[in-house]
């Protein structure tokens, strides 16, 4: 009698343990891979940027998987198209986190889209890594627990660099601004104004234009009449080329110092021979003498994507390079955290010590006070020559 009760007890315990073990293995089984999500423009005018980010992330993921993956699992990238639309980006981010259970999100080129994802990432404690969009408030978003990190330029710092460059190279006395009419343009309007105020330099005027504007002559004429001696340009590749073509028509040979919009596509084809006059900022260029790491990444790119034949096809380099470094930094954080839980991964980002990356060797790249891995010291100025982005010396 007694033995029977004992047996039933043991059986029940065994069953319970089995059920528990089953309950534990179930989610673990579903997580045989580490899923990471990307929300970027894969269609539309900025589609080339999404392609570059996918390439940069994929090369880094291949390297990580070749070394055994993360936490013993293979890394898998899931890509969603935001069509450069903030609402679509926010929905895609939610879907990736809630249905696909991604451990971290990567962002694309459009600041408005990233800004739409930031509050979601912070509320749900999902690390959100920006690899392109440069809007200042993406990482400096005021959240008490900030889950947004970035390996890319920051508008505020870019604007300082643009002003410094225009002073050093062109001795600008009264620059004018020609900015795209969206939150990215606005973010830079603030940054440029602040950077100019810090140097005590007045500006000739601030003009906005739309993505699909054919003719920017009216805006540029206003700046010319106001006496602008240098133009700061902030827009993506197609609208930037409309500015250059309009300047050509006006016959106004004014120096143009630009954010990195022109790098996002075939700027020299769209803007014509005057494209080379536009000096724009970059975080990385595959042209010139490369570091061993640069050579290796370039070789891997050419092997994986046979359509890359010349350096002119490795565009936009910033998208590839930022994404590549961002993926490795995220990988380091996940490995250090030993877990895919957002809060642990976030803490691990701060604990990253040294990472010899493609753009530079990162030393303590992140801290709660600075969630941006790159600073103005890492920017270079470049221009387009026959389809290739070449570095300029100051």
């Amino acid at each position, binding site marked *: 009698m007694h033995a029977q009760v004992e047996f039933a007890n043991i059986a029940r315990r065994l069953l319970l343990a089995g059920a528990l073990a089953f309950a534990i293995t179930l989610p673990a089984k579903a997580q045989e891979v580490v899923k990471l999500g990307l929300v970027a423009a894969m269609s539309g*005018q900025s589609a080339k940027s999404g392609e570059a980010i996918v390439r940069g992330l994929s090369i880094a993921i291949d390297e990580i998987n070749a070394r055994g993956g993360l936490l013993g699992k293979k890394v898998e990238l899931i890509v969603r198209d935001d069509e450069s639309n903030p609402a679509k980006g926010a929905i895609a981010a939610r879907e990736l986190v809630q249905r696909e259970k991604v451990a971290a999100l990567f962002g694309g080129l459009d600041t408005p889209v990233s800004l739409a994802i930031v509050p979601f990432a912070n509320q749900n404690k999902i690390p959100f890594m920006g690899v392109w969009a440069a809007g200042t408030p993406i990482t400096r978003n005021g959240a008490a627990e900030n889950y947004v990190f970035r390996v890319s330029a920051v508008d505020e710092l870019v604007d300082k660099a643009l002003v410094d460059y225009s002073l050093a190279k062109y001795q600008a006395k009264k620059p004018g601004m020609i900015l795209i009419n969206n939150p990215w343009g606005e973010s830079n309007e603030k940054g440029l104004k602040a950077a100019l105020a810090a140097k005590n330099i007045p500006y000739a005027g601030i003009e906005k234009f739309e993505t699909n504007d054919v003719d920017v002559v009216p805006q540029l*004429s206003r700046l010319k009449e106001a006496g602008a001696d240098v133009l700061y340009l902030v827009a993506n590749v197609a609208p930037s080329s*409309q500015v250059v073509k309009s300047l050509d028509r006006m016959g106004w040979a004014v120096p143009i110092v630009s954010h990195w919009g022109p790098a996002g596509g075939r700027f020299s084809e769209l803007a014509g021979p005057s494209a080379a006059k536009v000096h724009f900022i970059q975080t990385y260029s595959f042209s010139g003498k490369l570091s061993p790491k640069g050579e290796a990444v370039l070789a891997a790119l050419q092997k994986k994507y046979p359509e890359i034949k010349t350096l002119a096809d490795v565009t936009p380099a910033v998208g590839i390079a930022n994404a590549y470094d961002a993926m490795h930094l995220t990988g380091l954080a996940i490995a250090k955290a030993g877990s895919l839980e957002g809060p642990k991964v976030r803490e691990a980002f701060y604990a990253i010590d040294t990472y010899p990356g493609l753009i530079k060797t990162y030393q303590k790249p992140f801290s709660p006070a600075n969630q941006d891995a790159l600073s103005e010291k890492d920017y270079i100025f470049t221009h387009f020559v026959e389809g290739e982005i070449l570095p300029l010396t100051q």
Partner: protein
Amino acid sequence: MSGLALGSMYGLIALGFHITYVVSNTVNFSQGSSVMLGAVVGYTFAVRLGWPLPLAMASALVACAAFGLLVERTLVRPFAQRGSNAWLMATVAGGIVLDNAVLFTFGKEPRSFPSPLAMQPIEVLGAGIFPLQLLIPLIGITIAGGLSLLLRRTRRGKALLAVVQNADAARLMGIDVKRTIAVSYALSTALAGLAGLLIAPLFSVHSDMGTLFGIKAFAVAILGGITSASGVMFAGILYGVAEALVTALLGSSYTQIVMFTAVIAALALMPNGLFGRAPVRKV
């Protein structure tokens, strides 16, 4: 000055709205996509395949006309026959389908469509301008005038107009109503395609280049009074010039606000547009 070229382009697209409206009381809301189609097909033939420009342009116009026939046959006729207004949504949808189809086939990147007429600026009244920018208004006004004459003075034109007044009576008089409407659609998309070919060298060629043009052109068509060809063309030029002036005088932040408010105000004051005639209702 630069508003003139853009305005004429709006006018050309708006003429497409005009022509299907006067013939069949329907309009093709995928006109913006036809603009894009003209530019994309022209680019593909002229730049990618290296055809001579006139041949490439002609082929692009034929392609646009074919698209117009397809739109009429599949997106307008089935609905209009049932007396439904669903052609409105159907043509919008058709435009989106075409935009995305082009995105997949043509590619995602904006491309450049060079033209010898948009290389060296010439100076007119102290302002630099490409010769193409003078050609566009010329073509626009010629076509609007020609269309006006065609509709009012020729047998075929009168046949077109007869269709909208009374399709049954027109049919009894031996006019092929179906064919007439189909022809008007082909003509309207070809006009939009021509606008696309003309603007491409000043702009860039990409799959969503036509959307905003389509919207502005519809505003222009309504503003001009959709029943008058010359009115529509004039409204187009007026719109383009006003747009450039507002930007130059008030600054670009105000352009869209001022322009579309002005369109609403103009329509409130003159419900039939600037040059339209009120429809005669027989009781």
